[in-house]
């Protein structure tokens, strides 16, 4: 599979492109004569391929997140983003409950979103360390703190434009910082200033006279154009005129280099103070404009200085004066110095339009830069930036979805709605075409489905699904239904999730599946337990029925022990469901009969009769069981010492016998497997007992 993803949740087709065709390598001898498909959990698709020589079963994960990030890291991000996401959702719901309005947005809402954004952002890569105070290798121009990722770059870009209201006033400078951090990422698709600097640094050790190398001057202007002042100043100080043996001979030249370095390091910036960055920082626009004008006039003056003519190193003169042109905002110089449109764009903010505000003019400027630096292949971050600048929420979402996958969409959507009522309406509006859900919900569902695909992440899918008011619980039910019940820990986890989200229906369904599974697999106790939990009376009745069928045709039956344990398992405190109540009574009766057998205690015999009467009076005692019960009780009916059954009791039993003879006439009557003379001996015993009882009373 190629690195870009299949159906990465991109429910938005961006163009009328023909669908992507992915090769499916199977290693079977062609031809493939049949194929079959089966969806597993989430976005996992099982395929079976049949050829004449063999068949193969393959598993295809239809969504892989950004290939730039390894799986284990992805899972860390997935787990790490749960808490900030859930916190933001709970804040949103408590806020809307408080304000009693459907839209929870008020002026401070963005602060909550910003906190969320910062927390998520920190998951995507560690925070940048402040510059270390140790003495650095003077030849190291470009430092690398950590590998930046496109995902983090995308996240920060969205944060800059949509969330961080505090820094709106210095938006261009935030973009300068953004490019400083992420320019290296663009190296994958085309030439960048960062890439050139890295290449140059590798060769630095071999270069004898640096100022004679044209690349040195080119790179100085490039780095200056995108505002990497510290790199420029550092590189200028590598100029040969600084060397002790040269200093006396090239005093004027060195003076010019140092002057330019000083001017550069005093560049006014409209931004808060930042440690380790060169330039003079202004928070107020008025102060900034004043200093900016002053600084520019200094440069103009320096450009006209007579010292340039006196300097005899022409290459140094040309190089330095080009730097002045950059700072004076010469469009041609900037265009020459930068490699692609975003770099050019940033240079415009720094030197041509430092006061630029308003997204519309920013968008126009971007279009102009794209025309000046046309490119054959666009980096995905550039596509995202264009979407943001065009203020097209749908394009931004589509870019996020297509290029960065469902994780980013599901989480970044919170940022997109942070500041804009319009985006809020667009994204939260319920759409018939989507089955009555909003775009926000759709993307959460898509992400949750991806989480469901993996055994290590499915447990966090419910958190996202619970934030989907329309279809979240429906998908959660399907997800839970597809979990295997064989493994107890998974089963318990499932039931816990059901309890948490009040999914009683699916919960009893799962418990029923577990009950039937255990029952059928010979774990009768566990089977009964889960069926009881599920309150599945029809299955429990059938189990009770099976117990009747398999137990106690006679007192001497050895199977008593077997099923006695089963009834124990059914538990006495559990809700008696239908036949189970009967079984408990039956067990009591059998036990008391056992005590009586062989003994002569009339008291025990009376207890046994008590159990018998309870059974015979109980409507839940199946009719077909009456005869075996009476047959088992023959010893009681024929009790030697005295009649144990009273007249009314004996009459009740005789009536039951009468009912039974009527039942025999009906269809479906099953004859209990008793000795042929059973009925007559019961009749005789009852009649005798009745006689004795009448006499007694």
């Amino acid at each position, binding site marked *: 599979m190629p690195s870009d993803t299949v159906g990465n949740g991109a429910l938005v087709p961006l163009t009328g492109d023909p669908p992507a065709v*992915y090769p499916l390598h199977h290693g079977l001898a062609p031809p493939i004569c049949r194929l079959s498909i089966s969806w597993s959990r989430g976005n996992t698709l099982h395929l079976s391929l049949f050829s004449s020589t063999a068949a193969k079963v393959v598993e295809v994960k239809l969504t892989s997140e950004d290939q730039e990030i390894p799986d284990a890291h992805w899972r860390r991000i997935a787990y790490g983003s749960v808490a900030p996401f859930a916190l933001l959702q709970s804040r949103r719901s408590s806020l809307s409950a408080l304000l009693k309005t459907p839209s929870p947005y008020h002026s401070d809402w963005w602060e909550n979103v910003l906190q969320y954004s910062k927390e998520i952002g920190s998951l995507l890569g560690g925070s940048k360390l402040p510059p270390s105070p140790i003495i650095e290798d003077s030849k190291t121009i470009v430092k690398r703190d950590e590998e930046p990722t496109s995902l983090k770059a995308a996240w920060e870009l969205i944060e800059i434009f949509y969330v961080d209201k505090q820094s709106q006033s210095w938006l261009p400078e935030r973009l300068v910082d953004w490019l400083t951090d992420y320019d290296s990422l663009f190296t994958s698709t085309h030439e960048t200033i960062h890439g050139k600097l890295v290449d140059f640094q590798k060769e630095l050790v071999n270069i004898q006279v640096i100022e004679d190398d044209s690349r040195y001057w080119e790179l100085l202007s490039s780095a200056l154009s995108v505002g990497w002042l510290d790199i420029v100043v550092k590189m200028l100080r590598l100029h040969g005129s600084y060397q002790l043996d040269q200093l006396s001979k090239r005093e004027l030249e060195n003076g010019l280099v140092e002057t330019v370095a000083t001017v550069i390091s005093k560049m006014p910036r409209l931004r808060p103070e930042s440690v380790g960055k060169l330039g003079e920082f202004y928070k107020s626009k008025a102060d900034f404009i004043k200093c900016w004008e002053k600084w520019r006039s200094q440069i103009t003056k320096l450009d006209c200085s007579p010292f340039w003519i006196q300097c005899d190193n022409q290459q140094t003169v040309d190089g330095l004066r080009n730097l002045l042109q950059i700072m004076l905002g010469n469009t041609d110089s900037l265009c020459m110095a930068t490699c692609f449109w975003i770099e050019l764009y940033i240079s415009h903010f720094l030197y041509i339009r430092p006061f630029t505000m308003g997204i519309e003019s920013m968008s126009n400027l971007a279009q102009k830069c794209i025309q000046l630096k046309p490119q054959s292949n666009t980096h995905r971050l550039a596509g995202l930036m264009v979407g943001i600048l065009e203020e097209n929420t749908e394009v931004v979402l589509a870019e996020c979805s297509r290029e960065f996958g469902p994780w980013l969409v599901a989480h970044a959507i919170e940022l997109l709605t942070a500041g804009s009522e319009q985006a809020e309406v667009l994204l939260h509006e319920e759409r018939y075409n989507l089955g009555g859900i909003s775009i926000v919900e759709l993307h959460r569902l898509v992400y949750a489905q991806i989480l469901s695909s993996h055994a290590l992440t499915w447990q966090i899918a419910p958190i996202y699904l619970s934030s989907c008011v329309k279809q979240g619980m429906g998908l959660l039910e399907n997800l839970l239904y597809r979990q295997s019940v064989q493994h107890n820990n998974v089963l318990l986890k499932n039931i816990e999730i059901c309890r948490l989200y009040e999914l009683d229906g699916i919960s009893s369904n799962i418990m029923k599946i577990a009950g039937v599974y255990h029952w059928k697999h010979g774990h009768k106790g566990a089977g009964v337990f889960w069926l009881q939990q599920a309150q599945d009376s029809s299955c429990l009745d059938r189990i009770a029925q099976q117990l009747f069928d398999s137990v106690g045709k006679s007192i001497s039956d050895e199977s008593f022990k077997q099923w006695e344990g089963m009834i124990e398992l059914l538990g006495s405190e559990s809700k008696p469901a239908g036949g189970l109540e009967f079984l408990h009574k039956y067990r009591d009766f059998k036990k008391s009969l056992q005590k009586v057998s062989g003994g002569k205690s009339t008291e025990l015999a009376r207890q046994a009769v008590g159990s018998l009467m309870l059974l015979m009076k109980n409507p839940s005692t199946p009719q077909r069981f009456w005869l075996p019960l009476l047959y088992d009780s023959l010893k009681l009916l024929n009790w030697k010492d005295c009649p144990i059954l009273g007249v009314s009791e004996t009459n009740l039993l005789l009536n039951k016998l009468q009912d039974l003879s009527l039942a025999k006439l009906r269809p479906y009557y099953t004859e209990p497997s008793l000795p042929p003379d059973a009925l007559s001996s019961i009749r005789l015993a009852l009649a005798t007992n009745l006689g004795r009882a009448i006499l007694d009373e």
Partner: protein
Amino acid sequence: MAKEILTLDNATTCTSWNISGTRLASASADGTLSIFDSRDPSSSSLRSTFKSRVLEGNIVKIVWVPPEYGDAVACISADGIVSLWEEVAEDSQSLQWKMCKSFGNSSGKVLDVQFGISSTSLKMVAAYSDGNVRVFELLDPLELRNWQLQAEFQNVIESVSAFGKASCLSASISWNVQKGGSQESSFLIGFNSNTSELNSSKVWEFDQAHQRWLPVAELALPEDRGDQVYAVAWAPNIGRPYEIIAVATHKGLAIWHLGLNPDHDGRLPVERVALLSGHQGMVWQMEWDMSGMTLATTGQDGMVRLWQSNLNGVWHQQAAFEPTS
């Protein structure tokens, strides 16, 4: 991304995964059924746990019984015999696969069977080569041996229409899977036969009051009613105000919306929202993912295709897989 998880022998004719994707049943031309189990829920590696000859002749399809009724499969042979096999441990014996029921071919071959749960009992719909549809009901929830014929009818809207002896090549059945139980149970069936009245896919719903199955919708435009149906698939509904159904015929892949509220005749409103082309020739199989948002299909062109709807409700092919060695 594609990971091979199992190689099967050359006589293998069909496979089927259980609902949780942890057990795979495969069958072969000589009537052998094999079961493979994954070792633990997080791994996809499989090991063989059962292999035995269960039917005379070629098994062409395996269908798992819903998990509420145990671990069981129905195997359909090329001769049209259905054999129901179940994994049980009886009377302290070890776990075994045992045959519990066979549905013979006294009245035509069985072409397809599908299980559905309605009003707490398990139903099995079987489509026969003579165009008949039979619904069997399980009498005892713990015993897959005892089935009762609940209904028998033909896949026609007007029961009076007369036609000659039907001969069907294939049939496709799909249940509307529900977990709430508030709605009546319903399923969808379409035929590939020489009798045009039988072919078009129709939705059958159980009428509790009269204890019979009624056709409540026909998923074909008037001019397409005789078209032979290759495959049907009812999408899981996680909360849409309408049902989505896919029907494949030689004209292409149609996506239908089925309304939830019947009109005065008791019919459900239908609307064809897309007719898609992609597979050259016959469509073999269609499956919806668990959200009902993506449809996967396979067909005679040897491709696997994925279909989705965009934000505007326009259906399109999202991706395709081409097997290559």
